[in-house]
């Protein structure tokens, strides 16, 4: 039995039935990380000592009869989540030697739930990008073809899951950073509603958009992790008091009568193979009892413009705190992409330009929100491709100041509106690269989109197909 191929749900069951110990499971993953890291570079920091200590502790607790939702489960965490006593760089040399004295709320919740921390995953520096090529620690590679990018910014996280270097990963999305790499790496990526999961202790990017969420092998794993992550946090004033449902309760119910919306604009300019796979997946959903309805949504190109202004502005403000005085290195350590974004944001917020750019973008955001609200009066969820292409080759993002926006055109509108969305694998290109479909729901519709994703996954269990990387795969 290969322990590293287990899904979260399967691993938990084996731990509960004492078929395996957490130490055995953790050792299997640490071995797998060691074997594949020279080719994948999915991690900035691997924490074997911490992991084995957590695992031994979990085994001891289980022996004492203690039961916790993630007891003994090895996870990777994106390197923009503060981890007490463990280096947290956000893949930038500015934070090369930064060791947080506290845990992000997400990390605290995972620890309380009994997780084992394998390490911190690579990302675009400060999460600025959709490739991981802006990481100061080198790009991560796509496990399906190491000449290709994993996507980003949670590229290391998605690669670590696809390559079975971890049971599951925690990533974060501002606009696409969970769904797009999940799509390119052929795994499940859930972007919760803005405010569903606390941002406290996450290296801030676009504060009105940032949403932490899980990247997993299976849909059920995603529901399990969201259960641990979701909930109001006194340390984050934008975290929502909306009640957290039991995400597993209705997961396996059918989708008979579900109304699915499709917008032609979301298929425009999309690669033929991606389009064909997603259209096939929509037929599968129809077969499962859903009805399809054509809808007209606001053209995604405007969302790119809104996002570009809001994100750069919020970045310039958030990264102003990096002064090299209290922690980290000084501002000369910023890479080119961060500087470019800080500069644009500084300009659009500077005297005389606020109304023309930032305020205008905030108003168009209102228009986009209203547009989605109207659409959700007629349909329950909206589906479409997650990304216009499959994983692009290494080097594709270099010198492209709008690379991320064009790779994320199909996920930016729903991010701007703060909606919930999930990527699920729906096929492969002829070249063997994964294709993903996104299911977008209204705010706080995680339960529903997880159910739709689960139903699809049962029909087309692509998680059974693994990349041919590593001797034991």
């Amino acid at each position, binding site marked *: 039995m290969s322990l590293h191929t287990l899904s979260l749900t399967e691993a938990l069951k084996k731990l509960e039935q004492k078929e395996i110990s957490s130490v055995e499971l953790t050792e299997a993953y640490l071995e797998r990380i060691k074997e594949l890291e020279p080719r994948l570079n999915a991690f900035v920091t691997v924490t074997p000592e911490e992991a084995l200590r957590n695992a031994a502790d979990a085994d001891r607790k289980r022996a004492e009869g203690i039961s916790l939702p993630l007891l003994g489960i090895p996870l990777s965490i994106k390197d923009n989540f503060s981890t007490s006593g463990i280096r947290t760089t956000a893949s930038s040399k500015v934070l090369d*030697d*930064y*060791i947080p*004295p*506290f845990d992000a709320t997400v990390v605290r919740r995972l620890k309380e739930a009994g997780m084992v921390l394998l390490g911190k995953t690579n990302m675009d520096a400060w999460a600025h990008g959709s490739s991981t090529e802006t990481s100061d620690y080198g790009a991560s590679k796509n496990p399906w073809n190491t000449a290709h990018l994993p996507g980003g910014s949670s590229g290391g996280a998605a690669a670590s899951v696809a390559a079975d270097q971890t049971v599951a990963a925690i990533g974060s999305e501002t606009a696409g950073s969970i769904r797009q790499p999940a799509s390119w790496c052929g795994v499940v990526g859930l972007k919760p509603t*803005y*405010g569903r999961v606390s941002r406290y202790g996450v290296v801030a990017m676009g504060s*009105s958009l940032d949403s932490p969420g899980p990247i997993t092998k299976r849909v059920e794993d995603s529901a399990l992790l969201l259960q641990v992550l979701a909930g109001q946090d*006194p340390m984050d*004033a*934008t975290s*929502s*008091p909306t009640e957290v449902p039991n995400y597993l309760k209705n997961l396996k119910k059918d989708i008979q009568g579900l109304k699915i919306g499709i917008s032609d604009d979301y298929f425009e300019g999309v690669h033929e193979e991606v389009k064909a796979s997603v259209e096939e997946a929509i037929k599968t959903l129809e077969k499962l009892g859903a009805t399809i309805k054509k809808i007209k949504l606001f053209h995604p*190109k*405007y969302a*790119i*413009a*809104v996002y*570009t*202004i809001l994100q750069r502005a919020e970045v*310039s403000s958030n990264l*102003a705190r990096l*002064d*090299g*005085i*209290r*922690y*980290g290195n000084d*501002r*000369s350590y*910023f890479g*080119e992409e961060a*500087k*470019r974004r*800080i*500069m*644009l944001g*500084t*300009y659009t917020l*500077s005297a005389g330009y606020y109304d023309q*750019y930032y*305020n*205008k*973008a*905030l*108003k*168009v*955001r*209102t*228009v986009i*929100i209203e547009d989605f609200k109207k659409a959700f009066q007629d349909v329950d969820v909206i589906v479409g491709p997650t990304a216009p292409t499959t994983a692009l080759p290494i080097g594709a993002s270099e010198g492209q*100041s*709008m690379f991320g926006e064009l790779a994320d055109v199909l996920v930016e509108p729903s991010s701007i*509106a*703060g909606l919930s969305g999930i990527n699920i694998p729906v096929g492969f290109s002829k070249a063997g690269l994964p294709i993903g479909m996104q299911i977008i729901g209204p*705010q706080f519709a995680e339960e529903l989109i997880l159910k739709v994703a689960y139903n699809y996954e049962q029909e087309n269990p692509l998680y059974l197909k693994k990349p041919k990387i590593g001797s034991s795969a």
Partner: protein
Amino acid sequence: MKLDIQHIAKLANLHIDKEEEKRFEEQLSETLDYVEKLNEIDTENVEPTSQVTGLQNIAREDIAMESLTQEQALSNTKSQHNGFFQVKAILENQ
């Protein structure tokens, strides 16, 4: 559009060299041209949305809570003096 890159760099407290100046001027102009699209949308009577939760005036009880110790707060600084962060002089003597 003519952008004063060095002025923006000064506001952002970044050092931008001559080569970067030229590149950034082109790229920033290009991006600003792209976002001009938004002027196609009439927002005359639309309220701005700064964040999407609809939550307002979120406050907590004013009770002291556990926080970082002085030692923890200083644990990442490269320059400290007598338990304080040490910074360069901001105001100079006349």
